[in-house]
């Protein structure tokens, strides 16, 4: 169980510090006390995606939230969620949602999730889903 807990601590660090643009793989792996290589493998085994994918999804999901509800520019939101380049942000965002940030905003304006307690919203957006088009497999499959 200790191994799972170590991996969880690294995931928790991403859930907590996703807005920090300096949060890189070495920093995250250090929370688990793992080397980079073993960490990526163990994380993927536990959560079904690599730490890098997880952090990107976490940031994208936060950006979706901001685009739905906040009166901020796409560039401001890009930096607020921890991306340092608008180009990378837009590309990742489009790969994840199928829409550019501006298209997403136009489509979803006014649909905030503020009434759902944050923990549940986080769980809903958390580490157990796969990218669109990747089939219905939502986790690593080890629990079933």
């Amino acid at each position, binding site marked *: *169980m200790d191994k799972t807990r170590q991996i969880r601590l690294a995931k928790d660090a991403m859930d907590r510090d996703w807005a920090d643009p300096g949060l890189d793989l070495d920093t995250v792996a250090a929370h688990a006390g793992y080397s980079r290589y073993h960490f990526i493998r163990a994380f993927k085994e*536990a959560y079904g995606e690599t730490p890098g994918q997880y952090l990107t999804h976490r940031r994208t999901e936060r950006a979706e939230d901001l685009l739905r509800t906040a009166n901020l520019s796409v560039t401001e939101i890009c930096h607020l969620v921890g991306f340092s380049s608008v180009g990378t942000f837009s590309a990742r965002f489009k790969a994840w949602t199928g829409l550019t940030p501006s298209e997403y905003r136009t489509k979803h304006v006014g649909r905030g999730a503020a009434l759902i*307690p944050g*923990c549940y919203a986080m769980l809903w957006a958390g580490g157990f889903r796969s990218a669109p088009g990747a089939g219905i497999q939502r986790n690593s499959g080890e*629990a079933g």
Partner: protein
Amino acid sequence: MIKGLAISTVWVLDQDRAKEFYTEKLGLEVRTDMTMGEGGMRWLTVGSPNQPDVELTLMVPGSPAMDPESAEMLRKLVAKGALGAGVLTTDDIHGDYKKLKDRGVEFLQEPQERPYGTEALFRDDSGNWFSFTQPREGGLDMDQDWTC
């Protein structure tokens, strides 16, 4: 008719450590700690001193409640941090956030303003997450432009 919620189950990985965490770090009180028969199931419950009619039972996955395979799956889910155990309330979120943090409680989110109050998130020592919320006086505030 149903009168209320009396006991809710929290699955923990080790009852001794959980007892220490829920009392010494969270400040809850032990309501019951007894073992049923020799080598039997340990019934451990805790609760808030302010709310005598509600308690949490801290259970470890395994016999007699479930088969070994189910217990292993559940232990894994708890350790992975996939399970939420509920919402705990306070009347001093900023003070209590600091107090709990100083005691080593692992927070996932510092206090943030939400329509229903000020909310932080933490995990217990097994991996269950809790919302820690100071409810907003006067109920929901829907006048602001909430960002998350």
